[in-house]
């Protein structure tokens, strides 16, 4: 029972550092680089993304025995696109400024590799609760990463955080941080930081990796 509970927690925390979708699995980088010029749009994107990921994971996990292998990809895409369009319509109706800020990257969540990747790697093989936890964990990991990246880029590039002035006006703005090269620079630094942090954590506590969970389950059977 203890290991059962442990594995649930590690599914949830897996997405934050050890298998962070952006920094460790290196998926969904395009949207991550594009929406991180401002913290507000990064938060919005993270929320929309997490919603779609959790819903898609739950539904695909529920249908995992119904969907034939032959058409599994078209089925996943239809389900994911449905959820994305729902989010898009609600955002267009109730959060117009966020909708305009995210622009084309909102509908592009449909083809975000993280969502399709989690459907393919996790949701189609695991039960509903585990898939939902995986979706939440991955969503938190993605949101934390984009918000952290947006923090660096907005503070250094525009001198603001969430629109509030945090650096004095006299501070020279590093405008390259708001452009593509600054995004790549931030991305590299965060990636290195994530690897470093993972090493630190591994040295301190014994952690079960994703593979270990599979092994634990096999042993239990």
């Amino acid at each position, binding site marked *: 029972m203890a290991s059962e509970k442990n594995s649930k927690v590690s599914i949830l925390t897996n997405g934050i550092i050890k298998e962070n979708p952006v920094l460790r699995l290196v998926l969904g980088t395009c949207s991550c680089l594009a929406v991180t010029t401002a913290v507000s749009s990064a938060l919005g994107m993270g929320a929309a993304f997490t919603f779609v990921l959790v819903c898609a994971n739950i539904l695909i996990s529920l249908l995992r025995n119904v969907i*034939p292998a*032959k058409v599994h990809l078209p*089925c996943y895409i*239809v389900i994911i696109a*449905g959820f994305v*369009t*729902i989010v898009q*319509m*609600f955002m267009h*109706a109730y959060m117009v400024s966020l909708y305009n800020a995210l622009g084309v990257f909102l509908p592009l969540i449909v083809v975000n590799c993280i969502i399709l990747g989690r459907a393919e790697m996790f949701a189609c093989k695991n039960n509903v609760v585990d898939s939902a936890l995986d979706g939440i964990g991955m969503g938190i990991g993605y949101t934390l990463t984009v918000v952290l990246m947006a923090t660096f880029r907005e503070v250094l590039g525009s001198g603001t955080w969430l629109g509030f002035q945090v650096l004095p006006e006299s501070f020279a703005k590093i405008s390259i941080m708001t452009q593509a090269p600054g995004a790549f620079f931030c991305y590299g630094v965060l990636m290195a930081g994530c690897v470093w942090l993972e090493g630190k954590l591994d040295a301190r506590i014994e952690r079960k990796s994703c593979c270990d969970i599979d092994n634990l389950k096999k042993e239990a059977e």
Partner: protein
Amino acid sequence: MNKTTWESTVKPVVVLSVISLVVSLLLAVVNSMTAPVIAENERAATLAAYVDVMPSVSDANTLEEVSGYTTANVSGAVKAEDGSMAIKAGESGFDGGVLTVIMGFDTEGKVTGIWVDASTQTSGIGSNVAKADYLAQFNGMDGTQNIVMNQDFDAYSGATISSTALFAAINDCISCYNELA
């Protein structure tokens, strides 16, 4: 029908069709919920833009809708109590995206303001035609004469297609003003 045909051919078709149908239904429901809100938001944004281009108007409720114009591509016109007008027109720019222009005219036909929505154009290129410092050149111009790009006013350098759409929409507004005035 034997079991293998069902498993290999019919079942995938049925499952995919059912999933698509359910998702479409769900989208139809959500759309019927959000479409009126979106339309209302757009109406409010248009009204705010009308007020924006008419310095003599401060309250959108005092505006009176004008109809009966025949100019193509004009999608709306309002008249203020003092006789000044605002006209909305759209022209397709880059890759078919519609660029929307709202222009304000005072009672003498002078342009009092211009509002441009170029969010459908390429970000950072075509969208530049909506920049305030570029649009400032049109303020105060004679709103009764059609204008020619690069002769009366400059196009935005590097955004020719979006600029062409902008000038066409401005001319639509001017033609409509001449028709209504």
